[in-house]
């Protein structure tokens, strides 16, 4: 049985304690927010696109919650820079788990994928393919 010990490897704790790209953008192309009501985790993601309206130039996030959700947002914000919206939308939970580099216990997976869902929903809303105010992991 895989116990959670591996969940708090140095990388996760480092991103949690020193979040990268933390804050708000002055001129985001789109902004989206989401929550994980189970934990009370909250994430806001600001994304700025290049002129091609497809390539991600910069991502910033703000949030509050457990280490898994916040570290995941921090790592994702770095990983997405230079990626396309298409690549973002193709990500799934395995990619998030790979990115975190640790085993995530089933009860904590919602914390891990919150940032990814917020970014993806934000991208779809920007493209006019989705209409929602807030993302939640309880769907």
């Amino acid at each position, binding site marked *: 049985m895989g116990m959670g010990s591996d969940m*708090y490897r140095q990388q996760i704790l480092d991103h949690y*304690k020193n979040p990268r790209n933390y804050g708000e953008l002055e001129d985001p192309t789109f902004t989206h927010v989401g929550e994980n009501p189970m*934990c009370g985790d909250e994430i806001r993601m600001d994304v700025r696109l290049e002129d091609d309206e497809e390539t991600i130039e910069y991502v910033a996030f703000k949030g509050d919650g*457990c280490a898994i959700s916040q570290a995941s947002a921090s790592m994702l914000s770095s990983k997405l820079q230079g990626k396309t919206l298409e690549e973002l939308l193709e990500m799934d939970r395995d990619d998030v788990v790979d990115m975190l580099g640790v085993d995530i*216990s089933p009860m904590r997976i919602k914390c891990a994928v919150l940032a990814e869902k917020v970014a993806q929903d934000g991208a779809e809303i920007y493209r006019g393919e989705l209409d929602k105010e807030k993302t939640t992991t309880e769907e």
Partner: protein
Amino acid sequence: MSQQNLESLDVERLREDFPILERELDGKPLVYLDNAATTQTADPVVDAMSDYYRRYNANVHRGIHHLSQEASIAYEEAHDRVAEFVGASGGREEMIFTKNTTESENLVAYAWGMRELGPGDEVVLTEMEHHASLVTWQQIAERTGADCTYIQIDETGRLDMDHARECITDDTAMVSAVHVSNTLGTVNPVSELVDIAHDHDALAFIDGAQAVPNRPVDVEAIDADFYAFSGHKMAGPTGIGCLYGKAHLLEEMEPYLYGGGMIRKVTFEESTWGDVPWKFEPGTPPIAEAVGLHAAVDYLEEIGMDRIRDHEEELAEYAYERLAAEGDIEIYGPEPGPDRSGLVGFNLESVHAHDLASIMNDHAVAIRAGDHCTQPLHDRLGVAASARASFYLYNTREEVDALVDAIDSARQLFA
């Protein structure tokens, strides 16, 4: 068992009745401190259920044959025994078996509330209600046009009884209050609340899910009109809950679930109902679970409910003191004393409750983290989640030490 005469519990001996406690997780001994969610099941309970399945499994109230008679008698007697355990002198006529506390709440809310409540009526709850009662009454109020009001808690985590006297008025039809809070550990002055309700001709429903397992409860001394609890929180099985109701109220109430086993006479045009409690227990009931619950009640009473309470209080006090000494831990609810039960809800400053529970799990320490089905109360406390350690008759001071050690390693990890 002979320890009846001893002062305190022979915990080492009692632990033998719960083989699950011998489990090791990744080589570390399990420290089970999530008893407010569910307690472990005592061997005599498992044995009684196994004996039922092996020797006299049959449907109840239907068969002429021998096994059905044995099963029916065992099922009915379980009602009498559980009624006696909580001081209900009416026996089975005042004791309905449900699936859990939540269903007991819903039974009264639907069977009584949907018929009796209307615009202008008030249902008075407390800010520390479990969702089982809070959400249920909220829904019934919405459908009937009644209003819900909430008795506030004070800064110590106790009910503000002055506010209770303001909330409960002649418009109040029902007061639904938790006996022991599953989040704060507060033991509420329920008989006082019931008296206030009765002064205004309102009924009182008490949620005893966290009280019956660990302290002597006498529903008649409390004078509750309804009182609910769950088998799985008192060393008994899952799948069975209890609803005590005063005989004359249950007599007058219409059922809320319909079907077989609850009727007196059925024609194509209409049906009449059987006696209490059967009219509230349609379909095949939880028979093995009732047998198990009977065994659980015997088991607890043999140990002695006041000694179980004392043991739990002692552990909670020890845990409270050790956690309070840490400086970076916020503890919710009253300080240790007679109005605090055997659970401790807290938050460690630097670590989110969910991270804390995950790290505790690495040490094989099982605690609960989250909103504990009291989201409005957490809003009131200004936190999204809290951690909770809850004790039962088999827990030890060494396990409290293991809790504190595991918290310390979480603190170090996040430092």
